[in-house]
């Protein structure tokens, strides 16, 4: 157990380091601006005096490393500064939206993960059958389709033609849980369709790869029942690749959310990010980017740690 603990701690340390580097990148990318933020916002017409005053207001007269640590410290304590566009507290802007985005991602994950694993394992077991070929064509098509295309098709049929779900997902905290789920259904389904295809393909590949191992042939030659071979011999070894598949796709979900939120005017973090990019509201963009990047890094870290924990060679060192 000693070696494995060491490895996990190493990964966690690496994760923290990555987070730190990511925050550095996000903060200092802004330094790449020609001129600085104050000039950028006020434009060419501003007098040097107003620019200087505005700089002081933004704290831009301080050296960059001081500003970085103030910024990082602020974010860690929930104070992310003010939006340039409307002077509101960024933490206030983000609060509910972050919650909404997570809510959407969780619904999508709850539908897509079991579905994809089930269908993917099935495709692997019935390799080269008609079902498998259909799955191949379907998933390939689905992967190569832009999210907004899927979204609008769903809107066209499920909202406009059949009227099952609302085409605009205007959820708010006052609504009941099921009402929120109902209104989030179309964006969640869109995300599901996109992610399921990826996950199915990767699950199928992982299982097929595994079924070709000599120890699976050995189990067959020991006269073990096929169901037991799958459950007892293949699955424990498939755990690591499958965990990887799932977590990678959850990370992908986080990104897919951005576009889907825009289509459905879903009041989440992604929409805030896109709006702020159009308005060039840098502090908000930085804060949102950091949150997305952190989630992504943490999910990848989770995949890393889980695959270490599910490796028998590491669990039982010599």
């Amino acid at each position, binding site marked *: 157990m000693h070696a494995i603990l060491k490895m996990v701690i190493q990964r966690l340390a690496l994760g923290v380091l990555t987070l730190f580097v990511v925050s550095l990148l996000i903060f200092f990318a802004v330094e790449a601006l020609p001129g600085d933020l104050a000039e950028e916002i006020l434009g060419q017409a501003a007098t040097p005096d107003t620019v200087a005053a505005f700089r002081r207001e933004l704290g831009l007269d301080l050296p960059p490393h001081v500003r970085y640590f103030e910024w990082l410290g602020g974010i860690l304590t929930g104070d992310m500064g003010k939006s340039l566009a409307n002077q509101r507290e960024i933490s206030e802007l983000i609060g509910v939206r972050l919650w909404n985005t997570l809510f959407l991602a969780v619904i999508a994950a709850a539908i897509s993960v079991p579905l994809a694993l089930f269908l993917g394992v099935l495709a692997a077991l019935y390799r080269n059958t008609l079902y498998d070929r259909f799955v191949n064509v379907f998933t390939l098509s689905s992967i190569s389709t832009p999210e907004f295309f899927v979204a609008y098709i769903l809107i066209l049929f499920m909202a406009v033609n059949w009227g099952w779900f609302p085409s605009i997902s205007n959820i708010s905290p006052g609504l009941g849980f099921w009402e929120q789920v109902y209104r989030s259904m179309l964006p969640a389904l869109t995300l599901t369709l996109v992610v399921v295809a990826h996950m199915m393909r990767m699950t199928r590949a992982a299982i097929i790869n595994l079924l*070709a191992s*000599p120890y699976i042939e050995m189990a067959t030659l*020991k*006269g073990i*029942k096929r169901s037991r071979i799958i459950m007892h011999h293949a699955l424990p070894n498939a755990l690591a690749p499958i965990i990887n598949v799932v977590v990678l796709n959850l990370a992908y979900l986080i990104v897919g959310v951005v576009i889907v939120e825009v289509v459905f005017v879903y009041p989440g973090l992604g929409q805030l990010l896109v709006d702020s990019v159009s308005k060039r509201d840098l502090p908000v963009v930085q804060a949102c980017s950091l949150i997305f990047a952190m989630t992504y890094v943490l999910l990848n870290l989770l995949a890393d740690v889980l695959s270490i924990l599910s490796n028998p*060679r590491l669990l*039982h060192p010599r």
Partner: protein
Amino acid sequence: MSTTSTGEKGDILLQMIGLKIEGRVDETWNEIVHGVDVTLRRGEVLGLIGESGAGKSTIGLAAMGYARDGCRISGGEIQFDGVELTGASTEARRALRGNRIAYVAQSAAASFNPAHRLIDQYCEAPVQHGVLSRSNAEGDAMDLFERLRLPNPDTIGFRYPHQVSGGQLQRAMTAMAMSCRPDLIIFDEPTTALDVTTQIEVLAAIRDVVDQFNTAAIYITHDLAVVAQMADRIMVLRYGNLVEEGDTRSMLAEPQQQYTSDLLSVRSYRRDERPRPEGEAPILQVKKVDAAYGKVPVLFDVSFDIHKRRTVAVVGESGSGKSTTARVITGLLPPSVGEIVYDGKVLPPSFKQRSKEQLRKLQMIYQMPDTALNPKARLRDVIGRPASFYLGLTGKQLEEKVRELLRLVELEPDDYINRRSTELSGGQKQRICIARALAAEPEVIICDEVTSALDQLVAEEILKLLQRMQDELDLSYMFITHDLATVRAIADEVVVMQHGKVVESGPKGEMFTPPHHDYTDLLLSSVPEMDPDWLDNLLEDRARLASEGRVLKAADN
């Protein structure tokens, strides 16, 4: 204990009649086994022998009513104890496998499931087939582990496969195959992946346990000397056909077919040792070399000389440091201590600092001709490049040089010059590698296990070719090998290595006559011979020596 063996010894247990098996290439099926008849009696051990492509593994698996992916049993009957397997239901075949017919695979390391302990995998078949309860199976496992002379038989089962060494794992797999006390076990090259010294222990253990339980076995191998120790009867196969079948002793004494006698004589090729020339300075000297991979030291104080027109064989098992020594000489791994002296001058430690001339004079030939040749390059360029690079040949001269080299390695230039290596057989590829090394007009060639990936008959031709090149071109060889038959065949001097050290070295004649260093003795005595009594005699000898306090045993046993 035995659940099903009701028959008498001598009754027919397995009969395959006119067995045909097809393999798929792209979309078409080609026959790879062309109607072979196999009969096996209870308690009998049948050896299936042949070179690669003979179809021996495929036939062995067919005895279980099993064909690998991309293969299918296309004709013939397979009768196992009265049950016709080709027509049997999946369920009926499943019930036999593991229970009455068991399988031992070549690579135990890959064939044990890494996620489960050995004992769990051992108990799986008896419990699933309803032969034994879990606790009885566990007790039985310990008994078998002990019979198979595994260390710590009571606890070794509770380890995971990766925690156990290769030789032990192979015996654990044999134990697992015995777990239901089957009537028949298929051994598919069970010792091929092991070192010679480890092989002995595994062979002896397998033979004893098969004997004790009166189990019938099909023993598949490419090594006639191994099968001679194990089998009562031998079938020689080639290209999916039976060449010859007969009782082991009489076949070894009097083979009926040319192919069989070729296989038999394969290890008997010898060449007389030529004495070291008096007063001539060595062409290459390895002087007190230490080397390490990163922080892990692998070579300790290695020294030996190579003389002009002589062959030095460096012998050792996997991990002995013989290939690392080659890497130090070629400059791929600069030594941490010591130096390489060529023709009286110290070579720069890294190949990057060596001159073109220094690089040219020292060439290398590799173990796997498949990976030593660029699959995308034409042979014209493969062989031509060193000639143009080192000797500056171009145009017509270069073309003529390439043709001359192809003729030298006995390949017809017009047929081969525009081909790619992917269109060649293993032996032909190795010839191209030799031609490529010769194209640089070298003085010393390092041959790293150049014959061990080849079938025995092909390997012998390559050895003879190398020998002829040495005589014609005054070459010196450093010949790395684990195979003592190869050493006997071509060496003038021998260097024995173990754990990164030179254990013993000297002229071949001396090295093959006792007394030896213990390890040399172990290594020499472990090489199987065609004599069917060889294993018995060896074990007797070793037991005698052990009683005198001199234990000869592989390190991992």
